[in-house]
């Protein structure tokens, strides 16, 4: 017994290493499995409120870039207004349409913390379950898609950004019927890869990559980025397209969370399909 104790004492550093390393690795792996539902993340109240304070200072440093992107968004939206199109119809009458419900609603949120430089990046915003934010909602910025809501607490929510290895946003090239998942390869925070596009497609440089509108998260046609270059990997029949992201994550200050009012209906229906298939 004494010898054993002496042995342990002599190599105590090694045993400390084993103990603490086990604890940290268990935390690391467990945390991944339970999808970061632990109390330690930034949607946590204390850390979230500290970040809010720091961000109130940081905000001023990026004001130029933020204003710029918001102004550009305003221009784009103004161009879509009905009043900026030539009206050539002779008779005009307003039709009260009660069937046409609002499908997508947007909730404005401010970024209080963000990560860009890790392999898996998250963004924390100052809206939570109190404001109607739920897990799985889409998030866009003034210039393009940002990510998907991941964890929600009462006052904060964390977003899994496009810059994350598990994020797969179904996207397509504008005005083509083809779509595929968008993958970030973890090298450059401005470039993502669009896969599964058939190589017969005659791709124009600078073509716009937009959301496909499939699924329930994003409406159709929201800008993701522009095509940088395309190539076929290793004799496959699909193109690997490098896409330059429209969102500048460094200057991201305000985001909109998309609430789909018909999400439950669509999901229930699709679930029924699966169930009836299993029977």
């Amino acid at each position, binding site marked *: 017994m004494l010898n054993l104790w002496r042995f342990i004492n002599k190599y105590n550093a090694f045993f*400390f290493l084993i103990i603490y390393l086990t*604890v*940290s690795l268990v935390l*690391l792996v467990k945390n991944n499995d339970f999808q970061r539902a632990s109390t330690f993340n930034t949607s946590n109240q204390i850390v979230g409120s500290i970040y809010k304070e720091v961000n109130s200072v940081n905000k001023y440093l990026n004001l130029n870039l933020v204003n710029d992107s918001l102004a550009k968004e305003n221009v784009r939206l103004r161009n879509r207004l009905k009043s900026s199109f030539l009206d050539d119809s002779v008779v005009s009458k307003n039709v009260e349409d009660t069937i046409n419900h609002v499908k997508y609603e947007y909730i404005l949120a401010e970024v209080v913390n963000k990560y860009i430089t890790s392999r898996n990046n998250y963004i924390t915003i100052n809206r939570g379950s109190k404001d109607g934010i739920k897990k799985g909602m889409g998030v866009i910025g003034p210039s393009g898609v940002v990510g998907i809501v991941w964890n929600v607490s009462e006052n904060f929510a964390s977003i899994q950004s496009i810059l994350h290895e598990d994020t797969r946003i179904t996207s397509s090239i504008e005005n083509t019927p083809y779509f595929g998942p968008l993958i970030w390869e973890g*090298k*450059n925070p401005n470039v993502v890869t669009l896969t599964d596009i058939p190589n017969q497609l005659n791709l124009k440089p600078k073509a716009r990559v937009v959301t496909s509108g499939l699924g329930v998260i994003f409406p159709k046609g929201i800008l993701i980025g522009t095509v940088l270059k395309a190539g076929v990997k290793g004799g496959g029949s699909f193109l690997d397209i490098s896409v330059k992201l429209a969102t500048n994550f460094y200057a991201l200050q305000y985001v909109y969370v998309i609430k789909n009012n018909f999400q439950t209906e669509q999901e229930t229906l699709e679930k029924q399909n699966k169930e009836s298939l299993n029977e």
Partner: protein
Amino acid sequence: MNSIIKNAIRYVLLVFIQVFLIKNMVLFGLNTPYIYILFILLLPFETPNWLLFFLSFLIGLNIDVFNDTVGLHAAACVITAFVRVSVTSITVQKDNYDSDPEPTLAIMGFRWFSFYALVLTLVHHFFLLNFEVFRVSEIPTTISRVLLSSLFTLGLIFIAELLFFRKKQRK
């Protein structure tokens, strides 16, 4: 007592700088410095092993809480602590010094400190980034990130050390 207060201040300061300031610094794509390991580097030699490991684990976990990466920095820091124990036990003979030596640039000299900082930084960054990516196929990319980030961190460590450089009056 004096040393406890000094290290406590250093702890708070380094965590603060790492979490709120350094996070926004990027070099060539994805390389950020992790200056907070300076805390582990500068703990006094006479720190008992249990305390050294506990403090390393604590500062790692503390950074993790702010980064949403529970266990990642903690694991890398614990490995760094182990390497620190090995390196100091090989290279430092306590009998050679009249007063208590401390692992700082000013006291131990440029050659020893640069070796010590280089080894510990490389080990820490290697395990940190590989645990983060957690994929064998991406190891070559990760190694380049390790090297560039280490360069960045070492630069900051030397700046910090030279900034607080105080020549010890050795008798």
